[in-house]
């Protein structure tokens, strides 16, 4: 193993069509992110897409708001149980964090502003998750479910309301994190254009 090499990134089968993209000029998208599908993928200003994150617009348009962080191995627009093609497959508000290995199924699925989708969490097709929600790791939101604002889903589906009132603080933290990530993740939006 040569020490000069920067990374070991085995090639991934980038099968499937190349989707039309609408990127803001200020986004950071890793070279090894996976974008497939036929419908447009829009990523708004200052959002970060980590390596090996997968955005699939086969079942509809994917929209990512401002200052979202899409971590590695997460999947946006996974074709869920319905398999239907809808106008908007997945829509993320601003300041949404999708953590490692989380999956958001396609089909008019909406994640509200400031919501954190935890590690390995799943959001079913057509679910509408409110603003500033926290889905703890491995939480599951059933297809079509509506989750009110400020809900915390924890311990295998328990629900409670976040009463901390720290939304702005959290957003500020995300902004700081993006500052760092922009310097760390070599961005290559041209690859997907």
């Amino acid at each position, binding site marked *: 193993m040569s020490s000069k090499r920067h990374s070991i990134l085995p090639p991934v089968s980038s099968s499937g069509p190349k989707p039309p993209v609408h990127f803001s000029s200020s986004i950071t998208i890793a070279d090894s992110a996976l974008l497939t599908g036929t419908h447009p993928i829009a990523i708004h200003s200052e959002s970060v897409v980590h390596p090996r994150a997968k955005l699939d617009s086969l079942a509809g348009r994917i929209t990512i708001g401002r200052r979202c962080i899409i971590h590695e191995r997460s999947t946006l627009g996974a074709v869920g149980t319905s398999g239907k093609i809808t106008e908007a497959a997945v829509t993320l508000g601003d300041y949404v964090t999708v953590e490692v290995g989380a999956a958001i199924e396609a089909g008019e699925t909406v994640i509200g502003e400031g919501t954190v989708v935890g590690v390995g969490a799943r959001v079913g097709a057509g679910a509408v998750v409110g603003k500033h929600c*926290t889905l*703890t790791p491995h939480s599951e939101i059933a297809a079509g479910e509506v989750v009110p604002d400020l809900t*915390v889903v*924890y*311990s295998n589906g*328990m629900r*409670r309301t*976040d*009463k*901390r009132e720290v939304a*702005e*603080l959290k*957003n*500020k933290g995300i*902004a*700081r994190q993006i*500052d760092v990530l922009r310097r760390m993740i070599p961005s290559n939006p041209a690859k997907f254009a």
Partner: protein
Amino acid sequence: MAAITPYTYIQCPCSDSSTLGRSSDTNSSRADGADDDDDRTFDPRAPRSNYSLYPLEYLLYCEDCHQIRCPRCVAEEIVTYYCPNCLFEVPSSNLKSEGNRCTRSCFQCPICIGPLAVTSVETKPDPSLLAAPDNTAAPQSGPYALTCSYCNWSSTEVGIKFDKPNGIHAQLSKLRNGGTARLTAKERKERRRDPSYRSSAATEQGDGRSGSDEKLDLETQFANLKSFYQSQLADPNASDGGLAALSDLGFSSPTSLSRIMSIYTGGSLHDKKAKLRVGAIREALEVDEGLQLADLDESAAIAQLHSEGHDGTASTSRLSDQPPNFGEAHLHGRSRFVSELRPIPYLLRTKRSKRCPVCRHIISKPEAKVQTTRFRIRLVAGSYIPSIAIRPLSLSSGSGTSASGSAGIPGALLEPLKPAHYLLTFTNPIFESIKVTLGAPAKTPGRFASKVTVLCPEFEIDANTDVWDEALKDPSGAGELRDRERERERRRHKGEEGGNVSNNNNQLEVGKIWERGRNWVSIVVEVVPAWLRLEHGTEEQRLREDEDLLEIPMFVRVEWEAEAVGDEVGAVVGRDKEAREKRELAYWCVLGLGRIRH
């Protein structure tokens, strides 16, 4: 129904009924027990067995008694108390005064039991977020709160904020829900003495409001009551000089007795003893004396119940996690609603040493320091008795199936009435060669009897040559690596040989070892799983829990010759150094093979 991987549980002798008898009645119990014992097959399904079967790792071994010891029979002694969060050792003197909880800043979330972190409750940041990322260093001052980073609970939800980021326990004990201060015992005492407070209390009473309206928390009330009754006990001396001789007897005095009698006899003794009652103990009448009027107005709680519903009430498990909250007057420190739950100070953990219950020798002793994982003494059964590994063995496929039994998918269901074979590998941990004798009932106990045949119930295992082993494990030597490979090759070869032999005959030879290695021996057990239907099936009795589990009771007897160490007791008898003495250890174990299809 979850698939299981084969397991071996070993029975600790402490639950053996024949050894349970006290020395006084050994004779009687032995007489009946002896012949009983020979026939008796250990039933893994017996209710008692649940408490006597352990995996090998959980068992210890007493070198003096030469016997297996289990977690149930050893005597534990606490070596160190420590907080599982900050890992600080807590001296046992603190334990007496502070209870078995961490008194630093370690708390668990009352909602989800996740750890709570101290975070500063910052003032709202200016909205110009997008503009300047590094304009301010986050204000590391200001009030602090405990927040859960898992479920996002915050102590601000119960109105608790802290001034300092450290010593949270001390701060919390002074805070009631909602943030109002709570008096410490010392402050209470001072306050009681303080004339200015007394006068202010008096003026309050003057306002027409009774002083007893003031809410006392439980600790204050208790302290008040205690001091009041103590003064009462002392008082009669002074007030009732005529009875001085009796007064110091307090409650047990005839004075008190007559008072109680008069209550129950409706005053028949009244005339005679009227005088005595002057000096009788009276009840608390004021707040200072600990009087607390019961707050019967529960409308607030009912309203809350209306608005929050069942989800707003605290579950019993959450309540049981809560330390008694003496800060709140109602419900004796218990909370009813989730919104009243307070942070839980971490319960302390312990490091414990273990003693043999019979000879009182220490058989396990960890080092006292919290962070170290070393043990001073650690006599685990695994280094004295052979371990038994179970593997399914498939003989059906002809072409070169090695002993690994590729067809036997771990956890697959056993087919009823279809013979299945399992490979038991016994590994000898001791430095002497051992002779193993196995005994298993031909049929498993229980309603559904599976047939069991141990093909080779008697064999010897070579000694565990540790030196050689160590040499192999040394990763530095390349030559040794080759040796190891060679040995492995040899082993594999042998295994194939064994496999071929059996395949050719298409039958396993009775009385023959399947495979043997440096310090291990594999033998084959044949089982014919039971048909899980009752013969007389008029009443379709359902299968009871785990009745489909095929468990084989097996009696293991291990014999070896050891250097006569000259037991402490027998040391006087001048034994020859060279003398070898025969040792023997016998125990029941249970082999769990898998579940039978039904």
